[in-house]
């Protein structure tokens, strides 16, 4: 390789690095903001103060960390449009007995099958940041925010809990 080309290599590497898409990484606070706002596009969705159940697996450090981040973001009340969310941490094994929550936020790492089944039994909208949760039908809605906001709704799961989203919203998201 000539010296001239060797000199160009670092610059070329930088251009390639800049041109490469940024690798997405979850930001629980951003995901929460999108999830909260998305709930306001439910027909007869929550308004005013509502409790978001944050489902976690105490045996999974990632799940616990995400739960902690979500609970910290919720704080004493997280305003998202017409709804102000407060949080209630719920162990995955205890979802069946959970009460007083408007929706469930399923952290990554939780065995979402049983949680989804419990959510359906209670007619609760389940939201997850793990794409597999929504594609499997355990979660009604999946959200991700990096590198851009993506919202996916599982129509069958939504129908199972009686959730209907507003038409304009439906036309701007992915449905599976």
């Amino acid at each position: 390789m000539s010296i001239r080309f060797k000199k160009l290599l670092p610059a070329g590497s930088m251009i390639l690095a800049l041109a490469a898409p940024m690798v997405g990484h979850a930001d629980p606070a951003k995901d929460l903001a999108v999830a909260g706002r998305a709930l306001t596009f439910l027909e007869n969705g929550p308004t005013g103060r509502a409790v978001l159940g944050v489902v976690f697996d105490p045996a999974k450090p990632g799940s616990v960390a995400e739960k902690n981040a979500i609970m910290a973001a919720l704080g004493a009340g997280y305003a998202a449009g017409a709804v102000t969310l407060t949080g209630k941490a719920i162990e995955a094994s205890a979802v069946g007995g959970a009460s007083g929550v408007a929706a469930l936020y399923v952290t990554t790492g939780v065995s979402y099958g049983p949680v989804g089944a419990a959510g359906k039994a209670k007619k609760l909208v389940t939201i997850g940041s793990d794409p597999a949760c929504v594609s499997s039908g355990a979660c009604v809605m999946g959200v991700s925010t990096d590198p851009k906001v993506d919202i996916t709704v599982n129509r069958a799961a939504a129908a199972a809990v009686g959730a209907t989203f507003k038409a304009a919203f439906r036309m701007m998201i992915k449905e599976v």
Partner: protein
Amino acid sequence: MKKQFLLAGAAAGLALAASSAHAQSMDYGSLQELFGEAVTTSATGSPQRSTEAPADMQIISADEIRRSGETSLPGILQRVAGIDVLNHAAGQSDVNVRGYNQASSPRLLVLVNGRQVYLDHYGVTIWATIPVQLDEIRQIEVVKGPNSALFGFNAVSGVVNIITYNPKFDDTDVLTVRGGTNGAASGSLVSTFKLGQALSARLSLGGSRQEEWALTAPLPTRHEVHDPHSASANLDVVAQLAEKTELRMEGSWSNIQEDSRAAGATYAVVKTITSSGKATITSDTNLGTLQAQVYQNQLTAKYSIAGGIYWKNTITVASLQDLFKVGTAHTFRVGGEYRHNTLNVAPVNTSDVSYDVAALSGMWNWEVNDKLTTTTALRVDRMSLERTGPFLPRAPNANNKLWDRDITKTSANVTLAWRPTEADAFRLSYGRGVQAPSLIELGGLELPIAAGPMTLDIVGNPNLKPSIVTNYELAYDHDFAPIKAKLGVRLFSQDWKDIKTGISTATLDFFPTATTNGGFTQINGSNSKLKGVEIVASGRVTPELGWRADYTLTDVEDAPFAGVNTASRSIAFQQTTPKGRGNLGMDWEHGAWEADANLHYVGDFQFYNAVTTKLTPVNAFASLSARLGYKAQNGVTLAIAGQNLLRERQDQTSGLQAERRVQFTVSKTW
């Protein structure tokens, strides 16, 4: 006929198959906050994120409008990549997309919340008549290229859809007072009211005045121009009729005076009064989101030409559409529209020329997979012409039956969008747009002029054909997320057929006979081709400092029909379109301070001289506009802004020289 029934049946079947889609009208603000980007319906009629809209579109936000420091819509639009603006006078400009701009620009369809504010008498937008205050605009959506498959006739070079705040969702209260050099003074008030749970309203009022640019050439003379001024009012009311049904009613009025080059190269004073009323019912049903709309625009326009002439134009539009989603990947829109448009035949005013248009349209958006989307839109318009009343004595074409004709034209938009990665997007699009003849071209002017011992008549042409534009475009966008920058490249090609000319008194279109005068009229005089490339880039150096740059290069080649002189017919677009135009802008914010600047460049071109009417060179120029603002306590903002700051006077067209202007603004929000 059988095919029509089959199509209707298929559409009805699709509608019935549509899943239940319960919703309210579109809440732009909430959706924008949710997705972190502007949302729009101007690409397909369906709500979409701006980065996913299958059209070459640029959206100007309310904050960008405010921080531009511009006082007019053309000044704001001038900052959009590929937009050509001819600033003929203080407060009077013509705007078009990517070339083919002209005095009384007819190729850009302009709307406010979907209501046409483009005026059909000349086929022109008189920007000062638009009854909207800058403070009540949520966003301006600029679609580049033809989109008449959605909006109908005249959306050929592009569409500007001005979206105002919705009083149901947005509480907007702003008072702005502005004063500046050259006698400039303006004020506006925007206020939103909630009348119980079910009724919301927004009222806006505004007025402005300034001195006309200095008269530095033999023409126009002091008697041919007046200082421009404007006043307008708008009322927007939303009533929630039922849980899933709402009624939005909008009424407006404007009264303006400005100096126009509507009659060609020379200047004339135009005074217009416009009024409008619009009602839209939107209901979410099991068949989708149904929308029924009716509006009427009324225009009285007086021109200081031919000793004084006026037109009264009334357009009534009724439309019905259904928007629905089938399954998880298919969105459809089906719609029908009827419009009636009528104009007096000036200056005698004993006759009328009118037309009815019936249109059917449809759109299908298919998300093939996560990376690939196709959109197809079709619209068929059938225009039926009519003329009633007497003619000038010995006028050519003096037979109302010549107007008994129908014109049926099809518009189409097809787009294939491919997003191979999160950072890359390609879009390949085809568009076919239809530009209808204006009512004046169709016969709204019958004017005898003395030519020595003879009388020659300027008359309309009932046989004028619509102009057709075909546009092909390949667009690529890349998001350099690590350095917070974006780059877009567009390659485009346009093919125009049957471009309509202006009146030329250099060539008789009708030779005198024993029973009729000779005369002049508009004709289809040329085809034309355009090729171009556009580069758009923007980014943020720090959270406080942003930049943007764009450059659009176009090459126009006219192909006039036999015997047509494009210069004397005012269709010499090869000469009158600059090859290059671009912008370089920055925005900065620190604490309570904010600063913005935009350098606008236009390359060499020629334009019709105000004295000789011949093509005259206009040298390349750059103009700078800037604003410095300070956000004080209690919602008060103080700002100083200016336009054309580089020179006291500057040739931006072949007419009046654009002047440096500076304004001081105080605004209060609550």
